[in-house]
């Protein structure tokens, strides 16, 4: 199997370093380049605002006590596809974001890849 997401730059917003390290490892295994990780909403926003190219993002819903939705909105405005990661599942999302591609903790590599591909509209080859 080839690596459909090879070379993609994926922003990580996640407040726990161990979980962020896990995501980085999984992304690297898929041939992606992790960007970040941002540990707060403010840090995430400044990374989205920066001119760095981004192909996608993985957003922890609850970041250091705040909700990540401002970052999600900024990404949407910039046209960058993203995936929520949460312990709550899709049911934990407010109505405005329901239906958005979501992965649940703990993760599997396959779940992350499928969610990213769905968000980015990439076909498996």
């Amino acid at each position, binding site marked *: 199997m080839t690596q459909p997401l090879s070379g993609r730059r994926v922003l990580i917003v996640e407040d726990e*370093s*161990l979980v*962020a390290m896990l995501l980085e490892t999984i992304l690297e295994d898929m041939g992606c380049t992790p960007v970040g990780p941002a540990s707060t909403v403010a840090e995430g926003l400044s990374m989205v605002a920066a001119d760095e190219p981004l192909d996608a993002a993985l957003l922890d819903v609850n970041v*250091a006590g705040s909700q990540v939705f401002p970052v999600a909105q900024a990404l949407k405005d910039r046209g960058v596809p993203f995936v929520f990661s949460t*312990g*709550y599942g899709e049911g*934990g999302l407010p109505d405005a974001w329901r239906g958005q591609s979501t992965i649940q903790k703990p993760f599997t590599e396959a779940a992350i890849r499928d969610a990213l591909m769905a968000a980015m509209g990439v076909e498996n080859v």
Partner: protein
Amino acid sequence: MSQNAGQCSGRDCVNCLRLRALPSDLGEAGLKQLVKSGDLAVDLATAFDASPNPYVVLTPDLRVAGANKAYFEVTNSTRAIIGQPLFAAFDSGPGEEAPENVRRVKASLEKARDTRQRDHLALVRFSIPRARPDGPPVMEERFWSATHTPILNAEGEVVWLLQHTTDITELEQLRRRIETTHGPASSSALDAMIGGNVLERARIVQEDNLRLASERNRLVEMFMQAPGFVAVLAGPTHVFQFYNDAYRRLIGYRDLEGLASAEALPEVVGQGFIDLLDSVFATGESVYGQASLVKLQRSPGAPPEDAWVDFVYQPIRDSDGRIVGVFVQGHDVTEVVKATERQKLMIDELNHRVKNTLATVQSIAMQTARSHPDPRTFAESFQARLMALSHTHDLLTRSHWEGADLGAVLAHETEAHGPHRITQVGPPVALTPAAALSFGMIFHELATNAAKYGALSSPEGRVLVDWSVSDHLHPVLTLSWREVDGPPAVPPARKGFGSRLIERNVRHDLAGEVKLDYANTGFSAEFSTPLDRGKVS
């Protein structure tokens, strides 16, 4: 009442009573006959005075306005009582039961007046003075039966009360005498003879009425004190007739009595509750609500408050089955609803933490596996890290996840290596749960490294840990981990998971800085982290 001034003889003028008594007392035929016979008023007055039935006419405040001859005779009184309050003229004497007897007659009169309905008093004891030729009058106990009839003016207001009273003392005494001599069993024969059965029945009905009246009061009292809210709404606009303390509490102690619901509680009109009442009133079908949200403006100008109620609206029917009102009852379940919401939040939060912790464990497993290709050493390392995480959890559980003390976290993670080999010096520092978990992992990695390659790998080596907190407005923790009397430290050729975890954790989770120093005298690490980072993991 003075249109007949020509014939009127003052305030006791019975002529003035004439008209209103006519339709019911005489009937159409009697009226025609009287009209034919000449002056209607005069005839009536004469008839009234000549009647063998005792009549007394009272003002609404229960003063004697007039009476007929039969009344004066049966009560041993004279025209002197005219103008007096009835119960000043007749006080039932000094007997023990006198106040109660007065009360019953008065209650019946007031009921007739206030309800504008005729009221019957089947049997009442009432003592009246009896004149004696050879001395002052004596009080004599008599038994009476009385009917009290309100007399209304064109506006429907009570202007007079007519008492028709009958002295039934002889009948009652006879009945009692026979009952005492022959026992109650023989009273049926007497009943047949003197109609005592009717009397008895009347008395029972009256006792029932009294019992029902007190029952009603007791029910009202119970409704008043009921824990749930209760209201009685009358008519198609749902006018508040009765509501209890719990209802008052619910709506914020507003005055509702006599007001239509939409007028009394304007804020609920747009919330559908009046429509529900309308439907109950129109269809007669009860309506139930469970944990229904109602926004109540409990005090003027204040923002509406949310309340959740369980309630039922039931139709109230009169004896003909017509719906005349709506009975409202229910419970304020606001606290229950809020507690349920809090519980749901807590369960969600717990689930979130569990899933987060599982992701953390997943990460530890994955990273550990990368640096331990041998399954045996992987298991050992992984287990040790899992235990480190678990130890900090234990500490946090003890404080109900409010936080943990830095020294306690350090002691927990290093005690396996012998407490005397690690010296800690520093003030108590309260760590948030997230910071405690981070420091727990960091101390575990430092101690493990020291035991493998550093001071704790040689018998004399020791670790000195000291810390301080500066700048109390935005407190910053400075902590140093120094290994002494061990082998010289050698920088690793490749950064292992342990040192990556330490660096990442300090920077990412604690928003601080760390410097690792591999000196000849031994390994050391200097940490600097802010303590006021309000973090929730």
